């Protein structure tokens, strides 16, 4: 029997191919990853779910060496602007966590990886960005 998988957050959709889903304001196009009562930009109250582009540009990063207990360090935290103009925060993965390996402005691509299994054997899947 295949392992059950759940996404780490509800805006990560694992099927058919892993992608993020944003709530897009039908009036002005602003995108949000959580629910909003009204659009923070234009005040409209109509939203629709839209898929977010998987590829983008690394706009900012930090290499975290000190974190709360239980969080493995070092890791690369990043702000990515996807090719459809959506801002996303996640980790850069499959890349050395050094200033030499991580470059501002580099092209990145969404990828997923398991982060653990619960007592029922369900696996949680996170997303990150890897150098494209």
């Amino acid at each position, binding site marked *: 029997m295949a392992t059950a998988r*759940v*996404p*780490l*957050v*509800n*805006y990560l959709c694992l099927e058919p191919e892993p992608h993020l889903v944003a709530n897009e304001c039908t009036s002005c196009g*602003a*995108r*949000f*990853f*959580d*629910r909003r009562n009204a659009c*923070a*930009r234009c005040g409209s109250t109509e939203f629709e779910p839209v898929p977010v582009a998987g590829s983008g540009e690394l*706009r*900012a*990063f*930090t*290499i*975290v*060496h*000190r*974190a*709360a*207990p*239980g*969080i*493995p*360090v070092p*890791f690369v*935290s*990043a*702000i990515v*602007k996807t090719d459809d*103009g*959506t*801002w*996303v*925060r*996640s*980790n850069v993965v499959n890349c050395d966590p050094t*200033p030499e390996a991580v470059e*501002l*402005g580099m092209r990145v691509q969404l990828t997923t990886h398991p*982060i*653990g299994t*619960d*007592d*029922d054997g*369900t696996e*949680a899947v*996170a*997303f990150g960005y890897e150098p494209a």
Partner: protein
Amino acid sequence: MTAQISPDSVWVLGAHMSRFARYADRDLIDLASESAMSALADGEVTVNDIDVLACGALFQASGAVGQRIQKQIGQTGVPVYNVANACATGATAIRTVIMAIKSGEAQIGLAVGAEQMGKMGLLGGGATKKEKKVFEPSGRYGAVTGVDGHLGTETMPGVFAQAGMAYAHDHDGVGFEQFARVAYKNHLHSTLNPLAQYQKEFSMGEIMESPMMSYPNTLLMCCPTGDGAAAVVLVSGERLASMPAHVRKRAVKVSASVLTSDPFTEDCQVQPDVNTLTRNAASQAYEAAGVGPTDLDLVELHDCFATAELIHYDNLGLCEPGGAGEFIDSGGPFRDGPTPVNVSGGLISKGHPIGATGVANVYEITTHLRGEAGDRQVEGATVGLAHVIGLASACGVHILEKAAA
């Protein structure tokens, strides 16, 4: 440039800050009350002259700290506002008193900011739940476990590192060395300030090689946690005009008091935007005060991390647009440069007991405009700007001017 006393103006009458440190034998109320009493004495008024009290102590925001201060210094029954606005809490307390005076409800008010943090360690990051029995979605993002460390960082050194690196992405001449130079400057400045938590000079090498917290912020590029308090007494111009000449002479005009929150930007949905609201606050403050960045003799800005200070050079208009790297490299914000920034040592060395910070910045500017800053005095200072920012976000900017002789 000096200011005349008009009836509808608001002035700093008295000011005090404690040395920022770690006080194991005193509590928050001790620290806050000492600053409150000292600020009253400095302004030559008593608690009976105070019409309104605003108090900011972020980690005890629900603890009626303002009323507990009254029990130490005088329960006169005046309105108390306990305010909380992240790292802009102290500035919010000051602005609350200013609004009360401007509304005509008060003639003299007291603003107190205080915090007791001890050795809190790293702020902002949440631990991943250790016992993950069953992955059940919860919260607004349906997270099945903690996301900090999996979907980027929530730690303060990391969040502000990213803010600095976003600036480095957009502008040339900004990197690890420029950020480190900010910390070099502030540690150097702190050696002249007896109120600073740390008063030690460090070399560029020591700063860049100190333990990495969140690249490019090393330990010596991060503010410490600590304890401290600061207080200011504010007065209407109408009331000040009837006070003795030696009191009027030491009063400092509040030429602008501005508080902003972050307007919608696309990137601030996933990382705090500390820029737009600072730019908005700065432009509103410059317009209200009728001064520009080149008129400023000194600036105390919110250098919680070295990466933050650098981007605020640009946000406050202290450098050419995009030129923050060149500004620090050319010595612009050093105490002998054209626009001295954080001659107190800044949050990085002076310390950052959160609620006290926004009041302490106004204390610092006030002290220089009075010509009472001792070894660290910026000679001939007549106009200064105090800036703080709290994440989520809130930005306070106050522009102060020396009284006309």
